[in-house]
């Protein structure tokens, strides 16, 4: 087994363990921390594949953004210290059947599909290529989705401000 295989299996094991812990933990803040490790493992896999841009984005958006947001919202709600109730037995059984069934289906498809390495996909996605594609309006450019998403984000931001401002007492403007 080569060095990269050992590293891959280590990262994969970490991801599986922490994903399981994230859904089974009974304390909600700990579940968020386990989720952080699972997401960090994904970034590590991207780094291993020399996909640095995606790895950095994974860290910045998921680990640095979403997990921080989750932790913040947990800290701002009450009852963090209470343990969550153990779910009913039939719920556990039903969800495990569903989960294992889904895993089995995925494994079945993956092991039976013949993956053919595409000879043309050797090109590395550099920062410059990504930037040009993202703002390109020619063949294979993504400027329209890019702009549509920015309008969506702007709308979400204005909406958040309006919602946050609504309950302000009148008179002391």
């Amino acid at each position, binding site marked *: 087994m*080569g060095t990269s295989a050992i590293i891959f299996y280590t990262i994969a094991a970490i991801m599986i363990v922490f994903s399981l812990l994230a859904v089974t933990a009974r*304390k909600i803040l700990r579940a968020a*921390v386990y989720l952080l490790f699972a997401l960090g493992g994904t970034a590590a896999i991207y780094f291993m594949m020399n996909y640095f*841009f995606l790895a950095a*984005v994974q*860290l*910045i958006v998921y680990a640095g953004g979403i997990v921080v947001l989750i932790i913040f919202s947990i*800290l701002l709600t009450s009852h963090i210290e209470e343990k969550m109730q153990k779910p009913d037995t039939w719920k556990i059984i039903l969800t495990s059947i569903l989960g294992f069934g889904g895993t089995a289906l995925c494994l079945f498809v993956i092991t039976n599909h013949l993956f053919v390495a595409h000879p043309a996909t050797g090109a590395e996605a550099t920062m410059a290529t990504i930037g040009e594609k993202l703002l390109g309006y020619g063949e294979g450019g993504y400027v329209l989705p890019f702009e549509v998403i920015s309008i969506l984000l702007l709308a979400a931001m204005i909406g958040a401000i309006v919602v946050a401002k609504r309950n302000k007492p009148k008179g002391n403007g």
Partner: protein
Amino acid sequence: MNWLYDFSILTQSIHESLSRNFVPGTVVLIEMILAGVAFMILFALLGLVLVYAERKVSAFFQQRLGPMRVGKWGTAQTLADVIKLLMKEPLMNKNADKFLFNLAPYIIMISAFMAMAALPFAKGLQALDFDVGLLYISAVSSLGVIGILLAGWSSDNKYSLIGALRSGAQIISYELSVGLSLLTIVVLTGSLQLSVIVESQADGWWIFRGHIPAVIAFIIFLIASTAETNRGPFDLAEAESELTAGFHTEYSGMKFAFFFLAEFANMFIVSALGATVFLGGWMPFHIGGWEAFNNIMDYIPPIVWFFGKVSFMIFMMMWFRWTFPRLRIDQLLTLEWKYLLPVNLMNILVMAFLVLMGWHF
């Protein structure tokens, strides 16, 4: 002494001598361990030197002498402090969340380690050279805030929690300004790769070549990075006079030392980043066209230039800390969202216009 000017000679010879004796898999493993040990030694040395420097600088600003008893001019004082911290009993609150309490210092340390791995220290002396280097550093340094939030909550102490939430709001806000001020220079370089950014300053550092927008970006970077590292005048997260010690009130012994070390390491990282992007990194002071002058400057090794510039940045940050009074939380957020961010956005536009017209040097 050639390796002092180009470290790739040194690293190449280490790699070759290892390859002669071991199989490739083992070589990779040994090199990973060597790089890790090198960074740990740097981390420890930084802690020792910077704590001493901070105490001496603060003493001189307050017309005191600072530590003088242990060793000549108190130089062994930090070493004595380390031994004291190692022997202290690690205490913990009864109701603290033990797992998160113990985990929090490590998250902060790991984020500092990961950021430091991508810094170019000298020519050929850089562990990771991504083509998204700047994005990577800002990504991993944003992980540190998780450690602070967890430390504050798991301590089971009101002061800690207040400190952690303040720190969270502060770091998340000021990250924007740090990123945008660095982007202003990226407009000039056209690359996020740190080695390319350094090479592009061979004819002069960007702070001189980028006109007024580069100077404005540098000032914003200084303010925002001081805030991002939780240092005075933005040290609301710790604020000794109101929160005892903020998010690390309950920590003692080596776990406290980890927070302390990480704070100094983060100060080093932002200083190194500022030195690399604005002040040319390890690139000697060059003026385009003055060949003789440039050759004389090249006699000073790059690593001396790098650490000289970083020391200058660190001294500025210590100067801030011991000069300005602490800001209130509303002043802090007003400064970021109503002044720095709009100025920054306008600044990037002006810089983009300058580059488009080719008006920079």
